[in-house]
């Protein structure tokens, strides 16, 4: 049985709903005086971060600590990795110290997959973002946020996102968040539309289970949630778009555009936001924007994933689709 979480595409609908339902219970722990559960007592988890990402690392760390796991943080900077040590040697070194699970963030797409499938280590592997490939816990926390807002906390239990219309806007080409979300939202029954300039959409996107549009204004009125992706300024120099101003004008979300969305629709962003680029301050600070909620939900989702993968003698998540499709 699969013991890892590498890609959102590996999750079945039932797996995903189980994770969301579990996260809903985990979320309630945050309201208690003692925000801690003894569940992973005696288990050691290493956060193996080859790429800087303070927020994701802190989110995993908070989740691990709330479940009473022993946490080791490993950052590649200033470590043996910067002296040329390979991923394999680093992982084996950590496992020799008795690690039960590795939460890995890596700039190379596929690094977590290699770590999980090369026979280098026995520990469970959780992908905390790899290159431009996948970021499954981000997709899960996004789906969790959508379900809470669009279906309801208690009403959402056991439910998926069938029929919900989700629009994802921005640099899809370089975005692991977009890839993970398309996979998971499709599994959960949502209808996904990607909106971006053609330069920021990958060649080969036509096989993805979603719609693609170049025009933001016409998609907004048909959206239950609009997710804005971060656009890095350096993309401008690589001619993906002419100027920041033109990008904001065509693909940025401001108050005027937000008004075109249905009353109930929410604005999401995986963070960190580039205010004035893909999103204006007015939108970012509005009640419809779930950025802060997403951060809180991230801890609940990661607690749920850690519990379901490590809480028993075998994982509760089936990953049935890995063998079916690929």
């Amino acid at each position, binding site marked *: 049985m699969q013991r890892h979480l590498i890609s959102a595409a590996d999750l079945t609908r039932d797996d995903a709903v189980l994770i969301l339902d579990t996260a809903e219970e985990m979320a309630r722990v945050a309201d208690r005086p003692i925000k801690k559960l003894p569940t992973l007592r005696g288990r050691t988890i290493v956060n193996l971060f080859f790429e800087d990402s303070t927020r994701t690392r802190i989110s995993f760390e908070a989740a691990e600590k709330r479940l009473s796991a022993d946490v080791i943080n490993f950052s590649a900077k200033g470590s043996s990795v910067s002296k040329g040590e390979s*991923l394999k040697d680093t992982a084996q070194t950590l496992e020799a110290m008795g690690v039960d699970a590795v939460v890995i963030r890596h700039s190379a*797409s596929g690094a977590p*997959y*290699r770590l999980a499938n090369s026979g280098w280590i026995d520990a469970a592997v959780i992908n905390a973002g790899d*290159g431009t*490939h996948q970021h499954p816990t981000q997709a899960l926390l996004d789906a969790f946020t959508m379900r809470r807002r669009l279906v309801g906390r208690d009403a959402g239990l056991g439910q998926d996102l069938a029929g919900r219309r989700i629009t994802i806007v921005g640099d899809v080409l370089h975005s692991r968040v977009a*890839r993970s979300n398309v996979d998971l939202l499709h599994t959960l029954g949502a209808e996904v539309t990607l909106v971006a300039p053609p330069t920021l959409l990958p060649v*080969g996107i036509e096989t993805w289970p979603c719609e693609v549009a170049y025009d933001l204004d016409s998609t907004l009125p048909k959206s239950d949630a609009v997710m804005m992706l971060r656009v890095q300024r350096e993309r401008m120099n690589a001619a993906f778009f002419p100027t920041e101003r033109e990008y904001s004008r065509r693909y940025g979300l401001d108050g005027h555009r937000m008004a075109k969305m249905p009353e109930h629709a929410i604005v999401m962003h995986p963070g960190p936001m580039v205010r004035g680029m893909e999103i204006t301050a007015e939108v970012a600070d509005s009640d419809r924007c779930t950025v802060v909620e997403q951060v809180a939900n991230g801890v609940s989702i990661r607690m749920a994933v850690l519990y379901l993968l490590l809480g028993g003698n075998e994982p509760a998540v089936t990953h049935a689709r890995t063998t079916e499709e690929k």
Partner: protein
Amino acid sequence: MSKILIRGARVLGGEARDVLIDGETIAEVGTGLSADGAEVVEAHGKVLLPGLVDLHTHLREPGREDSETVLTGTRAAASGGYTNVFAMANTFPVADTAGVVEQVWRLGKESGYCDVQPIGAVTVGLEGSKLAELGAMHESAAGVTVFSDDGKCVHDAVIMRRALEYVKAFGGVIAQHAQEPRLTEGAQMNEGVVSAELGLGGWPAVAEESIIARDVLLAEHVGSRVHICHLSTAGSVEIVRWAKSRGIQVTAEVTPHHLLLTDELVRSYNPVYKVNPPLRTERDVMALREALADGTIDIVATDHAPHPHEDKDCEWAAAAMGMVGLETALSVVQATMVDTGLLDWAGVADRMSVKPAQIGQATGHGRPVSAGEPANLTLVDTEYRGLVDPAGFASRSRNTPYEGRELPGRVTHTWLRGKATLVDGKLT
């Protein structure tokens, strides 16, 4: 010297014949030849081919002897049925002077397993900006006629034009690694459906096709010869087909792996499938097979690229590009071309021996199997079926994409000018 009688072999896949080797040459081809005084090799049912010629091998020496040496590389060649290999110039130091090519040439002579013909770099240090001393390399003991910056593209149109023109003086040929550098910055695999899903940087087909299109037009303009290394896309096939129909002097090679494997394999993120140009799609594979069958693509070349284990036992982006190929090439060609009915054994001899020898002007190789010719021969058990086991490779490296895969055919004997280099599948 001693005599060898190869008895009952199907010469080029035809009727059973006896072939008598006397010293370094083929003395007689017929039926019921006398075995008197000769060592007899029973070859009933096996196919006898002229010794294979590989126009595209990386022997890594000098500089990367941890992955291959001229000795281990030529032993791998003999194992795969080759009697002549062309050694690419991207060594350390680069083979861009008469001194380096003569060194490689001399090491080949000493090995005794396979003739080694060095390829010279087109530009100094493969840097694409200044022509190397092509004439000096041609006039050296190595007698270089094929020049290539393989691993890198001669992307500057003016440098490419000058190189094509310059080598006309001594009948040389430029072998182009067709890869537009700007379009392939950060490229990790074929750009398409799979790269979009895996989030790996795309290597678009157009980056190869645009260079081939430019170079065949340049070759036409200056009336020179151009050879296209490891052609990998259906679009490239169309361009070469068009160029040939116009009478442009262009030849092209395809690697065994591009005839068999597709980018779907990259889903495993196993760097053993990482190669340049990258594995393409099923549609490309089918177009390449068809083009090799109809002669649009002239030859099969291995692009044998050994790498040490640690360069493949890592994450995809950090891994080296390339696959070893000398010891599996003929089996892959049998699987993809012969067993599919696209090519007969005479066709295989043409694509893997006769034509590469012609393009590379290798004397004594790619000759007919008939009396008076040099005894460079390869005997193949075409009925054999077996799993590829890299542990048995003669190459110093093991980076094969075929480990554990069943492939047909097995070279049992190789003779280099009458001297057996491989007997019953074992190196001498």
